[in-house]
C-alpha cells in the first residue's frame, strides 16, 4: 500500500522532470515529409542544372560546382535559391502544423518555456551557419556551401537535442559526418545534400514516428 504510493511518486517525478525540461511534441511525420520535400527539391535542382549543361551556349563545365558558379552568376540562378527557399518554407510550415496537432492531442502547450528554449538553442548554430554560408558565397566558395549547411544543421540538431527527444542527436551527428565527408567530394554537394536532408530525415522521421507517435 505505502510502497505503491511511493512507486507512483517516483513515476510522476520522472514524468514531470521530462515534461518540464524537454519539448516532446515534435512530430516524426513532419520529419518524413521534410525529407520528401528535400528530395523533390534536389531532383528539380538537378534537372535544372543538367538541362542547363546541355543547352548552355556551347560551354561545358567540367564540374557541377563550376556549373553552379556560372548559374548563380546568371540571372535565372535565382531559380536554385528559390527551390531551396520553397523546400525550407514547406518543411517549416509542415513541421509547425503537425507538431501543433500532436501537442494538442497530448494536451501540451506548443509555445511554452520548453519550446522557446528548444528553438533558441536550435537557432544559434543554424543562424551562425547561415551567415557563414553567405560569407562563403561572398568569396565565391560555392563548393563549400553544401557541406557547410549540413555541418551547421547537424550541430544545431545536436545542440537542440538537450531540449527535446534526445534521439535527434544522432540525426545531427550523421549530418555533421556527411557534411565533413562531402568536403572531399566538392561538386557532388547536391547528392550529399539530398542524402543528409532528404534520406536521413525520412529514416529518422520513420523511426520517431513508430517510437513515439504510434502509441
Amino acid at each position: 500500500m505505502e510502497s505503491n504510493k511511493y512507486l507512483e511518486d517516483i513515476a510522476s517525478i520522472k514524468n514531470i522532470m521530462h515534461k518540464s525540461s524537454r519539448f516532446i511534441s515534435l512530430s516524426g511525420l513532419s520529419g518524413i515529409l521534410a525529407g520528401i520535400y528535400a528530395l523533390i527539391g534536389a531532383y528539380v535542382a538537378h534537372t535544372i542544372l543538367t538541362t542547363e549543361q546541355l543547352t548552355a551556349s556551347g560551354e561545358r563545365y567540367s564540374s557541377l560546382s563550376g556549373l553552379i558558379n556560372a548559374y548563380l552568376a546568371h540571372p535565372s540562378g535565382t531559380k536554385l535559391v528559390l527551390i531551396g527557399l520553397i523546400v525550407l518554407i514547406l518543411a517549416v510550415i509542415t513541421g509547425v502544423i503537425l507538431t501543433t496537432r500532436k501537442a494538442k492531442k497530448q494536451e501540451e502547450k506548443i509555445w511554452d518555456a520548453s519550446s522557446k528554449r528548444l528553438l533558441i538553442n536550435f537557432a544559434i548554430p543554424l543562424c551562425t551557419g547561415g551567415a557563414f554560408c553567405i560569407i562563403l558565397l561572398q568569396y565565391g566558395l560555392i563548393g563549400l556551401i553544401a557541406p557547410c549547411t549540413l555541418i551547421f544543421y547537424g550541430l544545431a540538431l545536436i545542440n537542440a537535442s538537450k531540449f527535446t527527444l534526445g534521439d535527434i542527436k544522432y540525426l545531427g551527428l550523421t549530418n555533421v559526418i556527411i557534411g565533413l565527408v562531402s568536403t572531399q567530394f566538392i561538386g557532388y554537394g547536391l547528392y550529399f545534400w539530398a542524402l543528409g536532408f532528404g534520406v536521413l530525415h525520412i529514416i529518422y522521421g520513420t523511426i520517431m514516428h513508430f517510437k513515439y507517435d504510434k502509441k
Partner: protein
Amino acid sequence: MSIITNINKAFDHRIRLGIMSVLMVNESADFKELKELLGTTDGNLASHTKALEKEAYIIVHKTFIGRKPNTSYRASRKGKTAFKKHIEALEKLLGK
C-alpha cells in the same frame, strides 16, 4: 536506524515533489509554469511553495514584468541535496 530515516516529511506530498522535480531540471520556473505543469490551483500551489520556502529548499524571486508581478522559484543547494536524499530513500524503500 530505520529505512525511513531519510524519507523527508517536507516532500511527502505530490505537489511538493512536483515542484522540486521541476526545479531540479530547470534553472528556474515561475508560478504560472508550475501551475500548468502540475495542474493545480493558485491557492494550493502557493501554500506548498510557502512550505518549501520555509524549509529554505527553494528560493523565491519576485519581480515585475511590465506592471505584472512575477514570482519565480529556484531550488536552493540545500533543497537539491535534500531532494536527492529523499529520492534515494524512496528507491531504497522500494528495493526492499
